[in-house]
């Protein structure tokens, strides 16, 4: 069985892989005739990434059957970092040889570079199915969240996120003092809030930061979904695909 996909921008794919790399060093892509998908939890079981890119994102897409491909995300990242602006990308995977080749082609088609990566043994593990329901949903500006997280890191290593009907609040408390960021509905930073009550939970800043930073390259807006003392879902709308994360809360005072 084999798989082949041509994407118009190698750069863009590189950013996507970087966003996955925020959570895992190693991951299994499930390849079907519709899409490639990766769902993985970090080794500490605190966060999860759910990534999918459908065949409509590709200029060419061929898949002769369902297969799994496990790769070292950090090694893949090393190859993709070699991509230059304007280059397109062809990914080819052969189920028998267990090799993934990454071909970078420049805009004029005059240079073609092929990197081959040995893939890893796929270990059959049970993966978490991210089917949670949430009480509140807010669509916000990614950079505003990135700043709020960065600001919070000045005083603490965790932050309380509150979604209220009219606003989204980030509050960090530490020995030094407190930092609060309030994003108000109908402003330039909050596009929409869907909730009838106030919900909140605490989250580790390092997890928020390492997710939001690379994802902010991919999308200007993000969707935050939350219930009190439950995991948060961070969704970054990408064309012809899905990039979502879950982070488990810190339950203070338990």
């Amino acid at each position, binding site marked *: 069985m084999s798989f082949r996909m041509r994407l118009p921008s190698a750069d863009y794919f590189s950013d996507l892989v970087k966003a996955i790399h925020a959570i895992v060093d190693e991951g299994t892509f*499930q390849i079907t005739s519709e899409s490639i*998908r990766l*769902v993985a*939890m*970090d*080794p*500490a*079981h*605190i*966060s*999860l990434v759910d990534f999918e890119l459908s065949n409509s994102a590709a200029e060419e897409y061929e898949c002769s059957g369902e297969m799994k491909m496990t790769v070292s995300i950090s090694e893949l990242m090393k190859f993709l970092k070699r991509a230059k602006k304007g280059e397109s990308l062809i990914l080819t995977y052969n189920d028998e040889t267990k090799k993934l080749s990454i071909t970078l082609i420049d805009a004029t088609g005059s240079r073609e570079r092929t990197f081959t990566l040995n893939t890893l043994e796929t270990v059959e593990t*049970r*993966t*978490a*199915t*991210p*089917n*949670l329901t949430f009480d509140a949903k807010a669509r916000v500006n990614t950079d505003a969240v990135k700043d709020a997280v960065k600001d919070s890191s000045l005083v603490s*290593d965790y932050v309380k996120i509150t979604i209220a009907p009219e606003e989204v609040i980030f509050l960090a408390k530490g020995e030094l003092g407190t930092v609060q960021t309030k994003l108000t509905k109908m402003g330039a930073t909050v596009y929409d809030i869907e909730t009838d009550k106030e919900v909140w939970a*605490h989250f*580790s800043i*390092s*997890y928020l930061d*390492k997710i939001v930073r690379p994802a902010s390259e991919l999308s200007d807006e993000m969707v935050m979904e939350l219930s009190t003392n*439950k*995991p948060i879902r961070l969704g970054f709308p990408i064309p012809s695909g899905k990039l979502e994360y*879950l*982070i*488990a*809360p*810190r*339950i*203070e005072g*338990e």
Partner: protein
Amino acid sequence: MRQVRLYGRGEAEAERSVCPVCRGDYKLCRLDVCPYLRHLRDLLGRVESSRVLFGSSPPSSLVGSWGYPRVYVGPLTPPITEDTSIMESPELWLDIPLERILSMRLSLVRGKVRADVREARDPGRMLQSIQELGMAYTPTDVELWFSREPRIMPGFMVRSAPWGPSASLEKTIVASNPLVPRPVEKAVSDTDLKASKAIIELYRSGISLSQIVRLLSLGLIGTRRWRRLVPTEWSITAVDDQIGRWLRGRVREKRWISSYQVYSHEAHHNKVSILMLPGPWMFEVIEIWHKGGVKIYRDHELPGEPDRYPEEVGGAFHALRLPVLEHLYRVGRQASVVVVAEVREGWIPLGVWRFREICRRALGRPAGSYSELDEALEALGRHTWAPRTLWERNSVVLRLARTQAKLTRFVGLGKV
């Protein structure tokens, strides 16, 4: 390899001003007043009256950091020719009195020569014989010719063990044939092997930490272009760190331990108490000094956070992390770990090895095993000199273990 910064805050503050005799001002350190030098006076008297010294180097060498990148490098050799290997074997030092360790180390005469760190890859005759000596793993006879009589200027350092009188070297003659282990020969001759990889290969073939440190500091391992002299203190931490990283990569793939475990050991006015919790690899050192009041220094590494230099604890962080990882690697498990390292009145600054060795010793004994975190904390509290609240309140790992929920609690496990 990443440059190791000089000191953590704890090292700079607590460790450096600690000699009960001269109170850390080594200029006041005098042969005739120092009680630790009592047994050495005859020996040192002889050293001080001669410009030539013949002895068995354990082997040992020292690269100073002063004046970097033009540093002082040279062998450490006592004026005796017997089996001196114990003088360079910290793994044996927990069982001998502090005074003996100190007098042993102070009998080591330091020959020194100024060299640019880059000369390591293209050494002159003198540096070449110093390097040759450094490759040996059994005591090796050397003849040192000094430009003047060695003078007592004992060097105390935060991380490395101290040494005795020193003088500039004119000539070094390696008098017996140094015995060089195969793996060392292989790593030294491979000029395409990166230093970080060489350290791991040497470690895995059973070469002692002291020797790996010596090879790194004398610029004997690494790719040719990057071989240079590395101050001994930096080498110690670099080696602890590199081996630790390698072990950490392996340990992170293992299953979590299944109960809370407590270990503790005390030696030479130092105590190391360890708490292991079932969970992902996390590591924290809480260093407590009980000397005229209580001082606390702490550092940690958490899952998902990039590596950073332990600003507070410094070299002791890596020295304590290594035995913990060695233990977990051996039992094939992963854990979240809190280490409480305490120092009491009576300790003299002999180096960071004592934390490493005490920690090893603690982990070598059966653990106290508990099914509840609170029981384990209580047990740890019985071991530490400091009251439980002191470290409990300061621990980031404990707070995280109590508050950070796992996703698995909310998300069903099933096939996607």
